[in-house]
């Protein structure tokens, strides 16, 4: 049963990719049916699982060193629900969003495969299987980000996403190999059991390598640059990447391997600090952006930083809780943004305004998402973020203090966005999106409201110390963020014009020149290495080759004489003999079938005589 969950979308993919040209407009229904089936099965699994806490293990023999093993516990159960549920909503939404696209059916094929890969990743119970699905997720992201590959920007973004995540994947792969070499198994359970006995250095090294993979996939500093560019893909794809698949893979991977990470405190610290650093940096960039999808993208990076902080603070549950709630409201925000873009055909904030009147449903749900993201009570974000801050306060105090500015930034940039987009004069001719698009928004909005109340892991109540302080600190900073956004963009008391000239603002607006750094550093490094290699090539290898050439020349001069007089002589003789005899013998091949028949008869007669005598 559990195996069917990733299998159904995979089947849908297979059918759609081969027969999509027949199905055409009906293609999405297949994808919806498949994902609906997966969602239903996930629900069924969840209902079986959550009350009892029983785990499900399924294993099929595959290679001698790895089985096709699947595992469902509470963690993966929630992930299944998130991926299949949000995936389902996004696919439904895409029916409206992608209408009229020439590769309509193929889009749904890719979406199905994406979900299938992510579901498989969530279910897999050994590193090898996980790595396979991990790469499959990366491949699908490549397809989907570059879905409109006619746009050079989209094609470039797809390549960028692929290469940057690949950079992280190298670390991931090395980590897996290191673990396999030291433990001799890919199975999680075996590794967990063997981990305490390993050398601490080895453990730290392998977990750091694994974390590299998470940095790439979950867009952490310094590999996050691909994520904003990935906004070139269709908006449902962005929603899927940001909310349910792809970026969550890294967080999920660490949470899944947490027993391993727990044994390497250094790695956990790195995870936490990288996370919070990313959160602040991305938050700052988000403030300077004017493209609605870019803002959301940086907010995703920032929120992923929060999740990493939660993981770094020894609380995988907090991280995953935030992952889940973030999944709901970020999907909501992206789909809302998609709805706005669909209506206005523009991503720029400058083109928007007064949408609350023109698109009430989209606007309201979007604001719900914003509130949730900012961590306002009763929305989901409040609970999950609070949990992370709580964990950080207890186990990673520096992280906690650094997180407060990030919280401030979060609410600031989100409300900056809201104040610019929703109130005021109506610009352009926006119209409300069709039901197939708004229905997922409403469902997601309800989830974003209500999800926080049932904490899936129920672990918050362990220590009450400082809980109130943390609560008020985070709420206070969040309100401060909203308030300053209101001052700056709502009623526009303070003008920001002159700050835009400052060096810091320019530095942030240029995304810390990270892309340029990559180009300069990687490009320069490659140039340097290749220059060195060129010198090596010219002096040493060419010298050797030339020497060999000289020697060969001399030898072949000798050979030539031998060739001309002896070898050629033999060959010419053989050729002459063959030519001569062929000239004579070809008269046998008259082309008259009757001649051949006569030869056959004579042959029979001769054989007869030889066999039986005259």
């Amino acid at each position: 049963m559990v195996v069917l969950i990733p299998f159904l979308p995979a089947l849908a993919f297979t059918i759609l990719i081969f027969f999509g040209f027949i199905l055409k407009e009906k293609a999405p229904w297949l994808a919806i049916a498949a994902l609906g089936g997966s969602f239903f099965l996930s629900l069924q699994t969840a209902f079986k699982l959550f009350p009892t806490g029983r785990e499900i293990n399924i294993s099929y023999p595959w290679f001698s060193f790895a089985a096709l093993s699947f595992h469902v516990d509470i963690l993966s159960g929630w992930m299944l629900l998130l991926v299949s549920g949000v995936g389902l909503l996004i696919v439904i939404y895409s029916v409206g969003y992608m209408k009229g696209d020439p590769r309509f059916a193929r889009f749904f094929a890719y979406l199905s495969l994406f979900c299938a890969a992510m579901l498989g990743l969530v279910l897999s119970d050994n590193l090898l299987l996980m790595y396979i699905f991990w790469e499959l997720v990366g491949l699908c992201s490549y397809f989907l980000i570059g879905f409109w590959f006619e746009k050079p920007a989209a094609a470039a973004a797809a390549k960028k996403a692929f290469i940057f995540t690949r950079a992280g994947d190298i670390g991931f792969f090395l980590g897996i190999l290191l673990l396999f070499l030291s433990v001799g198994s890919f199975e999680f359970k075996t590794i967990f059991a063997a981990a305490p006995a390993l050398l601490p250095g080895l453990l730290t090294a392998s977990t750091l390598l694994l974390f590299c993979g998470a940095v790439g996939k979950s867009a952490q500093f310094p590999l996050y640059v691909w994520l904003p560019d990935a906004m070139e893909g269709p908006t449902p794809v962005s929603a899927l990447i940001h909310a349910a698949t792809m970026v969550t893979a890294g967080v999920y991977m660490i949470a899944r391997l947490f027993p391993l990470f727990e044994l390497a405190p250094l790695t956990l610290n790195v995870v936490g600090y990288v996370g919070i650093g990313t959160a602040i940096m991305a938050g700052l960039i988000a403030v300077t952006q004017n493209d609605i999808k870019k803002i959301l993208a940086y907010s995703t990076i920032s929120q992923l930083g929060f999740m990493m902080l939660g993981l770094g603070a020894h609380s995988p549950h907090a991280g995953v809780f935030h992952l889940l709630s973030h999944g709901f409201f970020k999907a909501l925000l992206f789909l809302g943004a998609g709805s706005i873009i669909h209506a206005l055909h523009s991503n720029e904030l400058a083109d928007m305004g007064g949408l609350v009147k023109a698109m009430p449903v989209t606007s309201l749900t979007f604001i719900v998402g914003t509130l949730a993201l900012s961590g306002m009570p009763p929305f989901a974000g409040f609970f999950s973020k609070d949990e992370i801050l709580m964990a950080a306060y207890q186990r990673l105090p520096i992280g906690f203090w650094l997180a407060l500015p990030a919280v401030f930034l979060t609410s600031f940039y989100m409300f900056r966005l809201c104040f610019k987009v929703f109130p005021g004069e109506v610009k352009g001719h926006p119209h409300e999106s069709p039901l197939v698009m708004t229905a997922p928004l409403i469902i997601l909005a309800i989830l974003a409201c209500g999800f926080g109340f049932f904490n899936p892991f129920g672990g918050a109540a362990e220590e009450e110390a400082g809980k109130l302080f943390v609560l008020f600190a985070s709420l206070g900073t969040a309100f401060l963020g909203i308030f300053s956004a209101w001052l700056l963009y709502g009623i526009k008391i303070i003008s920001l014009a002159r700050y835009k000239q400052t060096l810091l603002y320019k530095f942030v607006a240029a995304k810390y020149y990270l892309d340029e750094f990559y180009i300069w550093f990687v490009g320069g490094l490659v140039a340097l290495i290749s220059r060195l290699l060129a010198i090596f090539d010219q002096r040493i290898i060419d010298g050797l080759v030339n020497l060999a050439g000289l020697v060969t020349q001399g030898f072949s001069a000798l050979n030539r004489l031998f060739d001309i007089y002896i070898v050629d002589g033999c060959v010419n003789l053989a050729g002459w003999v063959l030519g001569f005899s062929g000239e004579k013998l070809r008269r046998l091949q008259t082309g008259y079938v009757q001649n051949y028949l006569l030869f056959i008869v004579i042959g029979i007669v001769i054989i007869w005589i030889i066999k039986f005598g005259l």
Partner: protein
Amino acid sequence: MEIIVLSLILFGIGLFGALTRKNAIAILMAIELMLNAVNLNLAYFSHNLSNISGQVFVLFIIAAAAAEAVIGLAIIINLYREFHKIDVEEITLLKW
């Protein structure tokens, strides 16, 4: 016994015809003679051994001969359309 000799001579005559005639239809007719010689032999054995199988084989051979004649003649008609003659010595696409 006499019938075997007879069918042997008939086979020889057919073979001679197949070897020497130049007209494709004439060759086909010579081949029919050879087939008939074989049939005669089979019928003789069937009679001599009181075994019906020989006659069954004769029937099969007649059917095969019919198929062969049909296909052969269709090919010959096609050849005629292409070359306006059916002399095997003049249609020498097999020649070197």
